[in-house]
């Protein structure tokens, strides 16, 4: 299953490293990544493949949320289908 991981936070050093490490620990492959700065806010969007992920979706979502909060990051994981449904005919 493919999913979109989105990360929002005030910009600081090491956000990408921190999040990608979390993903790697769960055997999640990053297929694509993009990041932008909106004023002083950092937004990172990753397309990931959950095929080898060790955790069930709910647990992964919760873990990313909790681990994100520890560093002041707002991390969401959502199935890719919702974006495709909304923006592609």
């Amino acid at each position: 299953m493919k999913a979109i991981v989105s990360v929002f936070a005030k910009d600081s050093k090491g956000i990408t490293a921190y999040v990608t490490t979390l993903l790697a620990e769960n055997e999640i492959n990053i297929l694509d990544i993009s990041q932008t700065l909106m004023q002083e806010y950092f937004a990172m969007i990753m397309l990931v493949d959950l095929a080898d992920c060790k955790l069930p979706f709910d647990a992964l979502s919760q873990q990313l949320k909790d681990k994100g909060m520890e560093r002041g990051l707002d991390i969401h994981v959502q199935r890719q289908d919702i974006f495709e449904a909304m923006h592609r005919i």
Partner: protein
Amino acid sequence: MSYLINSSEILQTIEMIDQQHLDVRTVTMGINLLDCADRDMDVCCRRVYDKICTLADKLVETGCAIEREFGIPIVNKRISVSPISLVAAACEQDDYVPLAKTLDKAAKAVGVNFIGGFSALAHKGFTKSDLRLINSIPRALTETELVCSSVNVASTRAGINMDAVALMGRIVRQTADIDPMGCAKLVVFANAVEDNPFMAGAFHGVGEPECVINVGVSGPGVVAHALKACKGEPFDVVAETVKKTAFKITRMGQLVAQEASRRLGVPFGVVDLSLAPTPAVGDSVAEILEIMGLEKCGGHGTTAALALLNDAVKKGGVMASSHVGGLSGAFIPVSEDAGMISAVECGALSIDKLEAMTCVCSVGLDMIAVPGDTAEEVISAIIADEAAIGMVNNKTTAVRLIPAKGKTVGDRIDFGGLLGSAPVMPLRSGSPAEFVARGGRIPAPLHSLKN
């Protein structure tokens, strides 16, 4: 970003959900209960309870799982059942309150927040069972928490059953005398639809399959946000913007509907394309009308603005879903819309203007608090006016009035949660008692003869 989706689109979706209150308003499971009929009320109740608990066992759990995986809130998980006047017709008992209590118990057991279908279809006349059900409504709604009731009193094909209109005025009055909250769960319809997923008017019609999933989408906040970006543009641009936004909202509803249908093993029925407001700031239909350029919702121009909105939502949504149905249009419940409440409180929005607005949107006089001493014949006459609009214009109309016990114009009544709170609105003076007392049927209009 490759893989077809770019990051601005992803950010737009996330922003719609996080900041513009985008959600799926309801996933409603329709359940046929006609096979639960029995002469013995206890047996009937047991069958009803068992059937609902078996079919809807996983409804809430599945809804929550979809919500988490897609990151889209599904605000309500609900059940609609066959009109209880049909289910209970074989029972040898006049009092249908036990069935209402059974529905309430089953709804609580499976964890849904409303169950609709304590209903009767009496647009041409009453069956014995319709009368028994209607007379049970005041107790049924005040002795249960989650049961919703509706009665269809008119249709374009049959005309208006004025006996039912008179009776429903009395029933609304009696319900309010016990507890005004009961009236928030009671809808009087003209041209009721069989696949409406929204409460309080949902029931599972006789033409529906055994079990079905209907989904109601929402998103006034998203439409409002999109329209803010086209200030001063002509209406062509406004209509196009609403259409594009409605398309996106509906695609999401369709996705959730298909996913729920697949996981539950229940066929998908329809997506209801309605803009349903909530009391939250920024989730208001009135606000959309004001963004179109009206100083306050309810002023001159409001009906035209609502007509455009209602039509554009349908045009945008219809291509996004494989099956569209239900009520499909903008809702204008006063208590559930912060902008409507504010418009009433400053005197801009009157019941007459609301009535005019119901000619061009999907429902009717919805969640309107009226003085606690409003006479039953006045309530009946209001129902008759709405039913006439529905009958003549070939559309669904409804009345959900709340006579606010012990309160008068200027007071406010609180319902809590999604039902919000409503300022008590003034009504016209002059008694319609003699008009309502005539009874009989108002004949169907000429254009009902289409064959």
